[in-house]
């Protein structure tokens, strides 16, 4: 005879325990941290390249880069002026133990702002907490206005939304109202920053948000 054992536990609970440990380490160092997610090509690394040089004189910035096979993104973050470490994740997303290894390789006391650049993917990263303070999603105009409807799990879980490549709006059939209505249904009141990493338009409000959050930590 078999016996029914009640469990009622989240599948990712072991990951969440490590994520809480990561958070404790980040908090102890007085750092503000974000988990930067997006589909491939939306502009995660471009956003890092636009953000780091503009904040570098006031804050010390670290980047943990998740990439399948190359160090291209970590190299770009380093060139932009961040202290960067790369994790070749060989996975479709980063998880808390991988980020823990990345934290081991950084001098946390020497940082104010930590960006964890996730693997380019709109499905998998949403389910895995890393221990960062905020989850950020970079959407982009060429992806189309239907993405909140097609990837609700990702849009639902984020704390801040960047809409990149707004310089392309005149050339593409992107209905911003439809996009925003979908986002609002999934994630009411999420902080949203339409901007262009190419022209720099709209970057200031995003920087303000980041700086306010850094100031709130240290």
């Amino acid at each position, binding site marked *: *005879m*078999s*016996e*029914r*054992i*009640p*469990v*009622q*536990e*989240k*599948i*990712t*609970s*072991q*990951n969440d325990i490590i994520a809480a440990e990561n958070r404790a380490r980040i908090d102890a160092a007085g750092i503000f941290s974000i988990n930067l997610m997006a589909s491939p090509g939306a502009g995660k690394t471009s956003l890092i390249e636009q953000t780091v040089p503009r904040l570098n004189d006031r804050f010390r910035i670290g980047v943990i880069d998740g990439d399948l096979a190359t160090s291209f993104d970590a190299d770009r973050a380093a060139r932009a002026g961040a202290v960067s470490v790369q994790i070749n994740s060989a*996975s*479709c*997303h980063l*998880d808390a133990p991988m980020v823990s290894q990345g934290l081991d390789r950084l001098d946390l006391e020497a940082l104010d702002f930590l960006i964890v650049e996730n693997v380019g*993917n709109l*499905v*998998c990263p*949403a*389910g*895995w907490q890393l221990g960062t303070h905020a989850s950020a999603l970079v959407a982009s105009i060429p992806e189309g206005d*239907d993405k909140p*409807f*097609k990837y*609700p*799990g990702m849009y*639902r879980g984020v704390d801040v939304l960047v809409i990149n490549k707004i310089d392309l709006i005149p050339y593409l059939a992107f209905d911003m109202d439809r996009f925003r*209505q*979908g986002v*609002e*249904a*999934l994630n*009411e009141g999420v902080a949203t920053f339409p901007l262009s990493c190419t022209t720099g338009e709209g970057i200031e409000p995003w920087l303000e948000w980041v700086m306010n959050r850094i100031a709130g930590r240290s």
Partner: protein
Amino acid sequence: MHELPITQSILDLALKHAAEAGGGHITDLYLVVGQLSGVVDASVQFYWDILTEDTPAEGSQLHFRHTVMEMECRECGTTFIPEEPVFICTACGSPSVKVIAGDEFRLEAIDLKPTDGSGELESDR
């Protein structure tokens, strides 16, 4: 997509709870999978059969209970299941709606067969 690490997490969680309950052979697992979790049953099942080999969960059966994404209208309070790809209240047509169900992703229970005296597990000695 991410079903391999997901499946490993299910196994780790089940083995932990089985050990806490005194050990034995896991025969059945009951999962609740919300639509928003993006998990594909067939893929989990595929990895399950590989990962459970030579573990106390070998040969066990996965039972999936699905929950769909449900929404509620902020204007009229109607709850509904959205017909993709639009999130519009099916009663009053308002676009002001919010998600109220579909995020679930948990292991509800496992069935555990004590190893002692069952005979089956020792039969291949």
